[in-house]
């Protein structure tokens, strides 16, 4: 046998031949997945099915509920609570935009300019995760109190005139207005924006910045043409991680807002836990889910980063 006649196999494996029990090995991933998948199937998928069946039931708490395929619940719920729906999307959208606007400089600062302060700044961003967010949200009641220094300051610089004109505040009050709710939402979800932004910025090779500079790009151009496009994965996952939970939130609306700022989350919560109108509540939460999923899908397609999923 000559060398040329030898079958074109890979070079002989170094070390002892490995014995591969083919069938057993193929089952390994399934065994690893089994407990987790079961948990998700029983406590995530099955509940969705139950909720779907609840949403087409009619009846009352006293007489019991029965599946009657009453799809009108969806239409009735949708038309009745349309204002709260639109308000939720508006507030969540505004909060997401503000988070991006506020979070980007901080993420940029930590990624590129912080030097030895980087760790401390990161800790200060992560630490809120470990402090009860309800306590911190309640603190906004103190900060935004009527006649307090923050409100007085905002009033002095004419900020409240602008927000009043936009319909976000009323007179010299901030608490119990849309501004307070958006402020709370922005605050609550900022870490969810900053961390993905930071991790995608951190991965950027700074030599690209230098190269752009060498090619006579001004700092603004470097940002617009190099940094920002490369941080897109962070922008996309950050906006999703902010918008999705913000759209279903009711904590900020309840603690910092008034009855005029109720979001769809408050409605679902009170339908489920206080009024006990389960079919309407289930229909509402399905409408919310569908809306969010559709918007997210369109957004991900547009942003062109399907590999995130």
């Amino acid at each position, binding site marked *: 046998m000559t060398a040329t006649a030898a079958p074109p196999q890979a070079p002989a494996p170094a070390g002892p031949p490995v014995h591969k029990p083919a069938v057993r090995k193929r089952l390994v991933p399934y065994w690893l997945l089994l407990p987790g998948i079961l948990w998700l199937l029983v*406590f995530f998928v099955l509940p969705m099915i139950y909720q779907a069946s609840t949403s087409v039931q009619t009846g009352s708490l006293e007489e019991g509920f029965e599946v009657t395929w009453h799809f009108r619940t969806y239409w009735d719920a949708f038309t009745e609570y349309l204002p709260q729906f639109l308000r939720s999307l508006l507030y969540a959208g505004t909060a997401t935009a503000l988070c991006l606007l506020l979070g980007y400089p901080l993420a940029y600062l930590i990624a590129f300019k912080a030097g030895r302060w980087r760790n401390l700044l990161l800790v200060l961003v992560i630490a809120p995760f470990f402090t009860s967010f309800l306590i911190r949200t*309640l603190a906004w009641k103190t900060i935004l109190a009527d006649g307090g220094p923050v409100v007085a300051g905002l009033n002095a610089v004419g900020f409240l005139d602008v927000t009043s004109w936009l319909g976000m505040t009323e007179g010299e009050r901030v608490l119990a207005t849309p501004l307070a709710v958006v402020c709370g939402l922005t605050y609550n979800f*900022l870490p969810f924006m900053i961390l993905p932004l930071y991790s995608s910025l951190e991965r950027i090779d700074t030599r690209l910045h230098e190269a752009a500079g060498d090619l006579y790009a001004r700092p603004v151009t470097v940002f617009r043409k190099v940094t920002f496009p490369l941080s897109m994965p962070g922008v996309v996952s950050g906006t999703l991680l902010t918008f999705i939970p913000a759209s279903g939130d009711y904590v900020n609306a309840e603690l910092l807002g008034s009855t005029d700022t109720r979001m769809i989350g408050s409605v679902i919560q009170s339908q489920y836990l206080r009024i006990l109108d389960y079919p309407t509540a289930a229909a509402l939460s399905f409408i919310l889910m569908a809306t969010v999923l559709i918007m997210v899908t369109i957004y991900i397609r547009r942003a062109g980063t399907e590999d995130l999923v």
Partner: protein
Amino acid sequence: MRTPLAWLRRNLVVIAGLGTLAYMILPNVVVTVFSFNNPSGRFNYAWQEFSLDAWKDPCGVADMCGSLGLSLQIALWSTLVATALGTAMAFALVRYRFRARGAVNSLIFLPMAMPEIVMAASLLALFLNMGIQLGFWTILIAHIMFCLSFVVAAVKARVLSMDPRLEEAARDLYAGPVQTFLRVTLPIAAPGIAAGALLSFALSFDDFIITNFNSGNTVTFPMFVWGSAQRGTPVQINVIGTAMFVIAVLVVLAGQTVGNRRKKAQPK
């Protein structure tokens, strides 16, 4: 170019970034300051006078420390279970090619792509329909469910960046599968697993919406704070908030210092 305006322009990012940080830290400062307050009414929203009373007697409020203990217990258990299940799933997804991999990936992604209230409400629908008593166990089940996806995401990120040749090298050096896993794979994946565990602890400990729906009459710490927002907030809540912030900063700083030392100790 030494005018203040030029200086401002050059440092715009730093100023804006620090501004955001101030916005993020402000509530924590307020919580800390008001933990030394002696409020006149039931609500601790306006500054009255300096007092150490709440710090001397942090558990002086009925039921508060009980709820705190319950939250810690639930967070510990759900972290343990979610980390174990999630780590196994992450390894299966990164290390093996198999059918249904895409479906499994989307099943894990879905809980993160859904408003929390939708999951909360659907779990309640399940428990109501099955006639399961709401309480400790339903909270625990719910928390494990939503922590799972976050653990998988954290561990997956780490395992993806691992060099499989290190494990091959270990096998070439006659390490058995168990030995390879325990002495090579696990130590390299540890930061990802730790991040996932830390995240799920924080998420579970702080969760309000899902707990609100599935707790029945059981009161976790966030539920207690929520209730007190209506009834009147005791100063002790601020004491706990301050203590949690300080402990969190110390734990994370300590973790990072250890991580940095390890990095420096490694050759190259």
